[in-house]
């Protein structure tokens, strides 16, 4: 066990998998010699050579399309999209190709591709370094979408993603690369090294895709969250003295419905949180699922606390970000009614 931050844990996942399976290759803008703008692939080119870790032209369409071709050959490409905001030029290859090739060929070909991308706000990145587009992928049958919230999960889930025989979109909450962020932007940041979830085994292990974790147990209220928002949800509960059960979904699709149902049946109240814009966000799906499946256990409407339906404005970042106040309001509303 070593204390690793998210970046180190993700780097380690690459390292472990590249050593185990020489079909694993890494491609993306600036991922080669430089090791990625967030350093997630640092050292890999040195260790595994230029034909397994290399820079790609600035073409997300090309990166994903080429990676699909590699995957159908039998490699397990890991493609980095520098920021999730830049995945759209490659959207057709994800939706029409990666997601559909297994189906289209009745299983004759499949796409063991991992698309990694830093996502989410909180770093003053402005409109195009802050987006959370997970809902767009959740709607596409055939895509698995994974979002870790701590170093231990990040490594274990990335290994599972690389081992998955299906295309996985793996979003990394960049705000918590270096330390958990509780949404109190005016307080000093604690690094991961102080956190038990940063105790990461050096070797191979997996965290299963499709299984949520209970990040905080509680009786009064179920909070469904993922990524950075897990930490904000916990901090909100604590700041308001609310006995909330915070579920860290970890995988968005397929979502762990059992864990969700169990918790909501117990608490009878539910708040869904995410950083993405609210309308038609993944929170809508969660809210719909909960009320469909736990309607008679619900004592109040399922609340959503999310990013506003606007682009992510540079200087108004902390007005956009769904911090402890927005969450607190939603928690209280869910408890009041």
């Amino acid at each position, binding site marked *: 066990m070593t204390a690793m931050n998210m970046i180190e844990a993700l780097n380690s996942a690459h390292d472990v998998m590249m050593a185990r399976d020489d079909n694993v290759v890494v491609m993306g803008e600036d991922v080669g010699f430089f090791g990625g703008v967030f350093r997630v692939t640092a050292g890999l080119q040195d260790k595994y050579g230029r034909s397994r870790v*290399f820079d790609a032209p600035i073409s997300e369409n090309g990166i994903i399309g080429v990676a699909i071709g590699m995957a*159908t050959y039998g490699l397990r490409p890991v493609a980095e999209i520098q920021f999730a905001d830049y995945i759209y030029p490659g959207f057709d290859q994800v939706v029409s190709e990666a997601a559909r090739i297994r189906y289209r060929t009745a299983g004759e*070909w499949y796409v063991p591709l991992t698309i990694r991308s830093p996502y989410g706000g909180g770093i003053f990145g402005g409109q195009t370094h802050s987006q959370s587009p997970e809902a767009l992928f959740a709607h596409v049958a055939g895509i698995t979408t994974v979002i870790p919230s701590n170093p231990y999960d990040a490594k274990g889930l990335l290994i599972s993603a690389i081992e998955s025989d299906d295309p996985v979109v793996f979003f990394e909450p960049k705000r918590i690369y270096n330390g958990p962020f509780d949404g109190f932007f005016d307080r000093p940041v604690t690094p991961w090294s102080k956190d038990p979830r940063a105790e990461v085994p050096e070797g191979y292990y997996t965290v299963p895709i499709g299984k949520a974790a209970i990040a905080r147990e509680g009786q009064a209220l179920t909070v469904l969250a993922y990524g950075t928002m897990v930490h904000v949800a916990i901090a909100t509960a604590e700041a308001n003295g609310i006995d909330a059960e915070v579920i860290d979904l970890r995988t968005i699709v397929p979502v762990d419905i059992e864990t969700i149902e169990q918790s909501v049946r117990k608490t009878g109240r539910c708040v869904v949180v995410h950083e993405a814009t609210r309308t038609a966000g993944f929170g809508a799906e969660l809210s719909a699922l909960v009320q469909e499946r736990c309607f008679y256990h619900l004592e109040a409407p399922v609340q959503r606390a999310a990013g506003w339906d606007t682009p992510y404005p540079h200087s108004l970042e902390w007005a956009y970000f769904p911090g402890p106040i927005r969450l607190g309001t939603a928690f209280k509303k869910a408890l009041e009614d």
Partner: protein
Amino acid sequence: MADKIERRNRPALSLHVPEPDARPGDEPDFSRIQIPAAGSVPRPDVTAQPAETHPLCFTMVRVLDDEANAVGPWDPRLDPDTLRRMLRDMMMVRAFDDRMYRAQRQGKTSFYMKSTGEEAVAVGAAHALDREDMCFPTYRQPGLLVVRDYPLVDMMCQIYSNRGDKLQGRQLPIMYSDRAHGFFTISGNLATQLPQAVGWAMASAIKGDSRIAATWVGEGSSAEGDFHSAMTFSGVYRAPVILNLVNNQWAISSFAGIAGGELTTFAARAVGYGIAGLRVDGNDPLAVYAATLWAADRARSNLGPTLIEHFTYRKEGHSTSDDPAAYRPQGAGEKWPLGDPIQRLKRHLINLGEWSDEQHESLQTQLSTEVRAAQREAEKQGVLVASTIDFPHDVRTMFEDVYAEMPWHLKEQQAQMAAELETKRK
């Protein structure tokens, strides 16, 4: 409201919108098409620098001359058996097309697309490739499957979406897929196969394999960003891939000028990316064969990709949903100055004394019989019946292969669907 128009002392700008030389009612007009003499184009060494091939992008590699004799440095000097087999394959594609087109018209399936007039493009290439090389085609290269002896019955079952369809009725007719025959699943979204082919080829190179990839795209579809990705990535990493651009002059109702064909050749794109390029008489199976072999040898020597423009003509409608009489002169295909690939190869074989009209006719009959027999066989497994719930495939299969393992929500939906079907049946 639009910006106030600023003209000052400048002349007025105007928009140029390309228009084909002839429209319905006009005589077909191919006078602007320049056709260099067969044999007039040099053949660079396979190890040549890309730049040495660039002049070839502005002319046309042609082997069969107007008398159907093979001339010049690109003559692949094939033995008569191979030539006869190529002839047979092209004829088979045409016989198959005719039969299946008719089946669609008879309401036995929803859709069909022919490759009439373009048979040489796929058949010539498939003969020059190794059997193990991987193809990433569009919908107009069924010839690849025919050359590689993919069973006609399997093709037809796919077209009928019937019980025998290994794709379980999931794909539109003619969107074949067969891994064993090195034929990648055809996508409905144009041009996506291009970067995929490049990626497959890069993977082959990464693994120290020896197989190369070949891909095809229409001149119309070459406007998609995927084309640019494929050119860029294949050049940068010297991927062992052949990028075939099939310029059949039309993209549904839009002529090649709308894709940029008015400005230069499509082969010229190779120049801008610094990769090898060839422009080929796509109705000349020997030229297609020779160019493909050249590009394949080059790829196998780690010298990277080649872009090949196949200059041909889409003789019939885009698909069964299309009527070209609405946008181009009738009978244009008959007047195509590069002739018909089957007729040209037939004549060539006759010139060589290796074929005769009688043999041709009897082969024609034999192929037609084969196709009919296959059709009977395929139809035993059903045809597409649109207004029915007697689905050829168990509806439960519909939920398979979305993921490797079926997640809970698909299992639930699968059960709901089964119940729904019960209700419907009542």
